[in-house]
């Protein structure tokens, strides 16, 4: 077992690619995410043998098979729980969870929120395509109300989850959003998530071209991005548009809202502070858009420091073992004994 992470600048994206042929549908957004991650890995200063990708069930969950690292394709929704055990027992490893909106937010919702609140040092990539792909097109917990699918022929009645809002509510210390049409943004956002000590959640808007094609086109389409994506940059005023003509202000009781910069003036814009201890502001930003048809923030919503769970576990263990090797024979005699 490696005690330290060995920087491995000698690898190329190809070294991180397994010999298994990806079996996603042609045109699936998952390909571009896989490519971004494989391109990112050689730059992270981690060794392949110290890297583990875990997943649950769903299209996204095939991801570990395509990475030439250690990997486990587990069962539906449980990857964060399995990752918790692995990260706690092997804090020397770099543990990743790849999940989808159904896996993470429906069947695995409980494990996700608890992994986040415990701040287990894992990086969670949540591929959100707002549909069930592997089971061939039922609505998901992020599908919009009214969604017509095989299981909702009269339209879905369910209020969707906003994964970023959910993660913030679950006491996550790192929450970000990116999308599958912008490799550079994906790589930078995922790199930030990886470098974060503690649980990091990245929602990746991902197009399912078979069952929900174009779900994010209104905001991630090449022609729409500038006007519909609100890049969050720590320490900078929040503004977007071709000329940076729109921005976000904090408006008393109304909360965060989008304005024309010309109307309010640059100085009135909200300066993004991802390190704010209070997640309230990040939550407000997560509510700016009611869905991927309105101007939507991307980037890092929140990145704060809190002790990571495995390190704290090890701290307790170190304190308990400070007295030297514990003796089994003494344990068996730790309660009253008698001789016969």
């Amino acid at each position, binding site marked *: 077992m490696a005690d330290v992470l060995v920087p491995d600048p000698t690898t190329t994206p190809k070294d991180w690619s397994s010999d298994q042929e990806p079996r996603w549908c042609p045109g699936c957004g998952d390909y571009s995410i896989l490519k971004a991650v494989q391109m990112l890995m050689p730059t992270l200063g981690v060794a392949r043998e110290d890297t583990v990708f875990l997943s649950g069930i769903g299209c996204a969950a095939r991801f570990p098979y395509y990475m030439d690292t250690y990997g486990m394709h587990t069962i539906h929704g449980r990857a964060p*729980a*399995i990752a*918790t*055990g692995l990260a*706690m*027992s092997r804090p020397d*490893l770099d543990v990743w969870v790849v999940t989808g909106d159904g896996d993470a937010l429906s069947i695995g919702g*409980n494990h996700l929120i608890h992994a986040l609140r415990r701040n287990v040092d894992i990086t969670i990539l949540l591929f959100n395509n707002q549909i069930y792909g592997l089971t061939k097109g039922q609505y998901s917990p992020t599908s919009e109300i009214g969604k017509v699918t095989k299981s909702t022929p009269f339209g879905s009645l369910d209020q969707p989850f906003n994964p970023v809002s959910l993660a913030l509510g679950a006491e996550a210390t790192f929450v970000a959003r990116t999308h599958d049409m912008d490799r550079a943004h994906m790589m930078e956002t995922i790199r930030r998530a990886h470098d974060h000590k503690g649980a990091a959640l990245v929602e990746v808007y991902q197009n399912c071209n078979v069952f929900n094609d174009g779900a994010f086109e209104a905001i991630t389409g090449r022609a729409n991005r500038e006007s519909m994506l609100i890049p969050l940059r720590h320490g900078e005023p929040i503004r977007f548009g071709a000329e940076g003509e729109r921005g976000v202000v904090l408006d008393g009781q109304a909360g965060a809202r989008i304005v024309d910069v010309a109307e309010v003036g640059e100085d009135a814009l909200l300066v993004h502070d991802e390190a704010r201890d209070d997640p309230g502001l990040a939550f407000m930003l997560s509510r700016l858009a009611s869905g991927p048809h309105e101007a939507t923030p991307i980037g890092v919503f929140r990145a704060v420091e809190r002790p990571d769970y495995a390190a704290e576990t090890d701290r307790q263990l170190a304190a308990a073992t400070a007295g030297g090797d514990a003796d089994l024979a003494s344990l068996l005699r730790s309660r009253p004994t008698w001789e*016969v």
Partner: protein
Amino acid sequence: MAATDREVAEPGPNAEPVEIDRVIIRVAGDSGDGMQLTGDRFTSASALLGNDIATLPDFPAEIRAPAGTLAGVSAFQVQISDHEITTPGDRPDVLVVMNPAALRKELGRLDPGGTLLVNTDAFDERNLTKAGYRTDPLGDGSLDGYRLFEVPMTSLTKEAVQPLGVKPRDAERSKNFFALGLLSWMYTRPLEPTVTWVESRFGSKPSVRDANLAALRAGHAFGETAELFDHPYRVKPASLASGTYTNVTGNTALAWGLIAASRLSGLPVFLGSYPITPASDILHELSRHKEFGIRTLQAEDEIAGIGSAIGASFGGHLGVTTTSGPGLALKSEALGLAVSLELPLVVIDIQRGGPSTGLPTKTEASDLLQAMYGRHGESPVPVVAARSPSHCFAAAIEAARIALRYRTPVILLSDGYLANGSEPWRLPDVADLPDISVPFATEPNHTGPDGEAVFWPYLRDPETLARPWAVPGTPGLEHRIGGLEKEDGSGNISYEPSNHELMTERRAAKVAGIAHDIAPVTLTGDVDGADLLVLGWGSTWGAIDGGVERSRARGLRVAHAHLTHLNPFPPNLGEVLAAHPRVLVPEMNLGQLSRLVRAEYLVDARAVTKVRGVPFTASEIEDAIVKEMGA
């Protein structure tokens, strides 16, 4: 029946103790009366005296049912003996009741002539009504057949602690120590172990400590001075095998067995567990022992409990999860994953009455078929069962040994009776415990198409059929595993029909092959030519042992075989069954082992069943044997 020497009358309170060979005492009161503590302390003091002991805590699921009601009665039974015993006894010789509800609920267990100690202070109209008495049983003659001792325990306790300035309400709480003191006098138990325990337990609450000690001494003094009792009794130390003994419950022994398994395998233990009765004490005990490098996670649910343990096993730790029946049901999908991943994992099920929430605090052994078959697909899992509280230690090591050597999840079955029951345990010499270490894979094990060295995660050991265990952090052995069917050898995803059949058969053969690596089943009783074999598993061991001995004393030829390994069965089980014209299978369920045995060996094994939340008594087993033999 125990010889309590009821005939001896005469001298006064300071008479010499009369020797008896054993006694069964049952204390019962309200859930808040501290009956479990009273029983536990009496047991500990008796253990230190060198008696053989066996206990049966019997408490309600409610933490505090309404005071004074039948639902709230909590009882503790202990048998102490000067010879080896295996059960807490069939029927008590002495019943101590702290209130009318306890009397009403428990009296039926006491034979006429039995000793009945009653806390008269609790017999007021309110409590009598709550218990459903129309007239006071202390005054209506209904208890005439018993040796009744009426003791105002509450008021005597209050009197004893009054000089300490303890509030009356707090004073009343110490009345269980008065009862303990009185019992200690009656059976000549020394007070010192209890005094030491009280001082350490209540050290931070001096007023509680002092009140309890005062009540304890007052109870003892009452026995000595009151003219109620003819004389105390003495139960001599049992002639047990020489060695160092301690008193353990099953759950403690299990936790210690896991710690031992960690030492013997050289692997850290990771426990992922969700609190559930009656398994939580294992989580509690392991959480205390971080000095052994034990990691514990109180998971968000049962599934995360097993999930995190699987993750730890993948990382090279000994993954363990503990639960009871409902939790095992929740874990079944993840257990199937562990079967498919072929990773070591110990799953401990402390069985309780079911289905559903069932009887959370009452014992049953009805999860055998769930352990065997409670997963989808062909999903073989080795199953090991503990037979007594102290045997939980060895059973935990054995479960870990199989899990590690064969890279498989193993289910270890205990139950509520073993979990909370206790017995003296002759401590093993740590040096004699088995080495259960297994090597991790460190090198590639196969040659790829281009002559390169590659690692195949599903290339099996030809002897054990176990796959290599390569843990993350090992360069060159990066691999992916998962719940999808894997190609034999390479472990790559495969939907090939013949491959699935092959892998299904391999997984089955691996588990079946463990039969060659476990001890053959042995017989006790009439080991040669018995007319009847009693086949048992789990916590019925003590009662069967007692029942078989009593039947043999009647002249019947009976043998007893007890299974630790339920899957696979010991290699000689078929032969043993075939050698006996009749086979009886007592079980705390409706006949689960008997069904397995009938299917596997085509023998007419007859089930003797009990699902009443309490263990079999030896006499019930004896009766079943006698009936079966037509004697």
